């Protein structure tokens, strides 16, 4: 034989994909990705392997053995749990061989041996993986005739979640979630052995902010959520995909309703945002939609107080108030606050009404508790970028309390060693445990703290290692935004390549500011508006889903502003402290009662679903704005929600990509980051020295507070902790009062009385009061004009 020498033209060699792994699944060749588990590769290849414990977002544990399949790696076929083994080249997988089927049927039979089979009275019946897979992969019959295991039927493991241990198949999903994802390992397998069960420690309930997720991922009916128990059968539910607007993370949800009532939210796995998780406040806040306290008709103030009226007369009254105000003080004597709680469309219509029809520049979506809008013009980071950055710098409020799912994402980045967190905080936060460095500063001095930290060698070396994302927000409502902005500028100057993720909290605050609910040229910001109103310079104040009396940190300023505004118009879903004072109140359609779009902190625009009929005669905010505009002589040209969405895409800088087609094509939404609106200028921070006998005040929010949405959700309303003044345990002696005793907390402005509590999260020399809780209002102590607040704490 002769060897022929190849004289072929040089064919460019096909570079084999180094991450491709060729396997055979059920007789068919399939190219999987390196590192993929067999269970996932098979699913991608179209062969669904039954499973209970395996969950894509958690590490595999091989607890349930349901995913046994026959795998031949060259040594002959063997049964392997497919969730525990990654694919290997040449692997031959058989998911439906007689041996695999026999194994799967055996597992189902064993799992059902002790399962009570009370499906007819089980909430999970109809959407239960155990039920479904018993039909699809089970033997159909059981040989087990003995008495089943019995436990006390559902026991509460928290205020929101019930556990039925008889139904539990010990898959480790809830306990893994609690430990791995939420970081609150408050449930665990106990009495392991013959009587293994999931349980809490006695008197330490599973009071995680994320407990509702365990109910959603439970593959049987063992975990049920109090707000949904016995409310509906899954086949009676209709669902629509939407976005949660409880905070500004923008988690994707499925809104499920039956008989025109929202009954449940389920998390939807949106890869760039929430990974399927929701916080309990977002998940269970749906109860407020159907609250009996919802506004149903427009109200106008008469001598006898608020009277229900028709939309016609309410709109006419409001238009007249605006016309009178323009006549009395000109267009600039009108101010509009709010818009952050609605959709982009709501905010856009109101921005058009305010800026173009009325002609005022005094518009703000923030309520003196946010950041200058210039921050939004900085190089914006996405959540994904933040969660994969080499270094995450936190100059932000406690994310666990304010943006819980962002906390999950950043926690994940830290515990999986992708990122290191450098935290600057006035008190310990939920992420302090996971931070590589935490720098505590005394409120007001964060710029100094940042400067000192940047000068440290190890921090400098860490920052030089790779990309940096700065998460910025107001960590303390008892100080102005100036010290935070100064610290941010110090960071962005030192790290010009860093991206910024603004941690503003209110649902659609980014969208509202982006589409125009921000001060126009020469216009007043929220604090300016409130000051002007307090000075009697505002002829008409319009509140669009804003409740300054509850939201503005400086309570006295808010009270004076609402008293000083000559005319007050409110658009709201509830009668709250502020709308109670309004001359005209328009009932607004709530979440799930209107369609539209919303924008999250990273600028991601996603859709909101209209799932149920509005309460009473309420209308979406944009419709109210369009109606008022028409009465003031301008047709905004909006006849339906799609007109408004299209108008935003056509007219607003940065939002060009949010067309109906783009949104329909991408359930994860489209990124719309507005161009820089105005440069951020760090105002000079003038700090008075703190007296040795004073405490510097930190006021921040807890997840559950007296906010109207929480207060009108019966399941959540009881979870607010109540007000107290917290100091470091070693400072208790300085106060000279016992823990639990009422103490006087005073500034030169006001004195409030609160119980004293100790918490080592609070730094020495500072005092912490949670905002908007039951009891005395710390807002009374806050002066919006001062950089920081110092208080004296004395026993009564």
């Amino acid at each position: 034989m002769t060897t022929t020498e190849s004289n072929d033209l040089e064919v460019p060699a096909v570079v084999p994909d180094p991450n491709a792994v060729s396997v055979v699944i059920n007789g068919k060749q399939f190219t999987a990705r390196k590192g993929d588990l067999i269970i996932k590769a098979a699913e991608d290849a179209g062969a669904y392997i039954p499973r209970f414990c395996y969950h894509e977002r958690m590490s595999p544990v091989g607890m349930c053995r349901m995913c046994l399949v026959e795998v031949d790696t060259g040594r002959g076929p063997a049964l392997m749990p497919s969730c525990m083994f990654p694919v290997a080249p040449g692997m031959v997988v058989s998911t439906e061989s007689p041996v695999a089927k026999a194994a799967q049927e055996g597992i189902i039979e064993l799992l059902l041996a002790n399962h009570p089979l009370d499906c007819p009275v089980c909430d999970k019946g109809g959407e239960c993986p155990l039920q479904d897979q018993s039909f699809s992969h089970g033997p159909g019959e059981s040989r087990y005739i003995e008495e089943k295991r019995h436990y006390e039927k559902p026991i509460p493991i928290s205020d929101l979640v019930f556990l039925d241990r008889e139904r539990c198949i010990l898959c480790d999903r809830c306990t893994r979630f609690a430990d791995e994802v939420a970081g609150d390992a408050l449930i665990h397998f106990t009495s392991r052995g013959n009587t293994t069960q999931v349980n809490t420690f006695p008197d330490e309930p599973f009071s995680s902010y994320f407990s509702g997720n365990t109910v959603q991922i439970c593959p049987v009916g063992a975990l049920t959520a109090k707000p949904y128990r016995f409310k509906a059968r899954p086949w009676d539910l209709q669902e629509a995909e939407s976005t949660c607007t409880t905070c500004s993370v923008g988690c994707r949800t499925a809104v499920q309703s039956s008989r025109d009532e929202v009954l449940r939210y389920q998390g939807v796995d949106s890869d760039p945002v929430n990974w399927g998780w929701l916080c309990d406040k977002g998940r269970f806040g749906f109860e407020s939609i159907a609250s009996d306290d919802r506004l149903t008709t427009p109200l106008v103030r008469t001598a006898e107080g608020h009277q229900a009226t028709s939309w016609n007369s309410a709109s006419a009254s409001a238009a007249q108030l605006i016309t009178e105000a323009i006549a009395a003080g000109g267009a600039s004597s009108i101010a509009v606050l709010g818009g952050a709680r609605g959709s982009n469309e709501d905010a856009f219509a109101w921005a058009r009404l305010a800026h173009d029809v009325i002609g005022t520049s005094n518009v703000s979506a923030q309520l003196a508790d946010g950041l200058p809008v210039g921050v939004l013009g900085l190089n914006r980071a996405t959540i994904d970028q933040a969660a994969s950055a080499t270094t995450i710098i936190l100059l932000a409020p406690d994310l666990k309390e304010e943006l819980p799912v962002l906390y999950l994402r950043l926690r994940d980045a830290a515990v999986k060693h992708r990122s290191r967190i450098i935290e600057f905080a006035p008190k310990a936060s939920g992420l302090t445990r996971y931070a590589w460095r935490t720098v505590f500063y005394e409120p007001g001095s964060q710029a100094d703290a940042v400067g000192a930290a940047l000068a440290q060698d190890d921090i400098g070396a860490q920052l030089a290692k790779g990309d940096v994302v700065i998460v910025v927000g107001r960590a303390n409502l008892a100080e102005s935004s100036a010290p935070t902005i100064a610290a941010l500028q110090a960071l962005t100057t030192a790290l010009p390549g860093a991206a910024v993720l603004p941690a503003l909290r209110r649902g659609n605050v980014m969208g509202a500011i982006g589409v125009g609910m921000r001060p126009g040229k020469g216009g007043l910001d929220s604090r300016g508006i409130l000051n002007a109103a307090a000075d009697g310079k505002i002829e008409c104040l319009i509140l669009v889903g804003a409740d300054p009396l509850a939201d503005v940190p400086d309570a006295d300023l808010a009270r004076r502003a609402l008293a000083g505004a000559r005319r007050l118009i409110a658009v709201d879903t509830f009668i709250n402290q502020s709308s109670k004072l309004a001359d005209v109140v328009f009932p607004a359609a709530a979440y799930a009662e209107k369609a539209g779009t919303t924008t999250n902190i990273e600028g991601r625009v996603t859709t909101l679903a209209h799932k149920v009929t509005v309460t009473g005669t309420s209308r979406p905010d944009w419709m109210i704005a369009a109606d008022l505009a028409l009465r003031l002589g301008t047709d905004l040209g909006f006849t339906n929600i799609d007109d408004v969405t299209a108008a935003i895409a056509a007219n607003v800088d940065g939002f060009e990509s949010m067309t109906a087609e783009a949104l329909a094509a991408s359930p994860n939404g489209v990124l719309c980051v507005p161009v820089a609106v105005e440069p951020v200028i760090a105002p000079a921070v003038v700090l008075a020295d703190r007296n040795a006998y004073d405490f510097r005040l930190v006021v921040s929010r807890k997840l559950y507070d007296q906010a109207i949405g929480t207060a009108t959700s019966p399941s959540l309303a009881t979870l607010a902790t109540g007000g107290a003044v917290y100091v470091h345990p070693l400072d208790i002696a300085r106060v000279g009062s016992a823990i639990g005793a009422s103490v006087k907390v005073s500034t030169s402005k006001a004195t409030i009385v609160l119980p004293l509590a100790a918490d080592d999260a609070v730094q020495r020399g500072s005092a912490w009061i949670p905002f908007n809780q039951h009891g005395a209002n710390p807002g009374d102590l806050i002066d919006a004009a001062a950089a920081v607040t110092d208080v004296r704490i004395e026993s009564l």
Partner: protein
Amino acid sequence: MSRLSEDNVRIAQEIIGRYPRARSATIPLLHLAQQQDGYVTNEAIRHIGELVGATSAEVLGTATFYEMFKFEPVGKYLVNICRTMSCALMGGDELMHHAEHTLGIKAGSTTPDGLITLEHAECQAACTEAPTLQVNYRYRFRVTPETFDALIEDLRAGRLDSEIPPHGTVARIRQRIPADRGVGAVAPEDVTTAPAWMPAPEAAK
């Protein structure tokens, strides 16, 4: 009954120092708690959680796996009578019956004076000496009703105090490893070089 005493916290810190991760000390600390109170109290579990950086639920989950940790008060002496095959054939059941009768309690309970807790046990691995029992895990072989009665009398009279310490005592002389004699526990992620016994990559070829 309570959290670990001040002295025991000192011992606990020393035990924790022997491990690269504090959590690894969970079981030794549970023994310490059981030695202190005779059983593991909820307060001790909470305290151990604080010491090793775990939640109470995690410590409880670990502790409840082990049969020999007790979570309710037990007597000064825990009497385990074997009921597995060999002992059952050689009169273990009768012995238990006699014990219940003599002590006036059912298996699983404690005499009113808090001295003796009676329990069934599975195989104690002394089948040649059946029937067996253990008092605080100290063997008694070929037990007859008469020797059982004598044993109880001795326990009541305190004649066995030198041989059988109260329930929960792991050792009467505790091993002390001064900090400077410790091996210097290193967490796996902090290990930078291969262990001495591992051949270098080229040598392995």
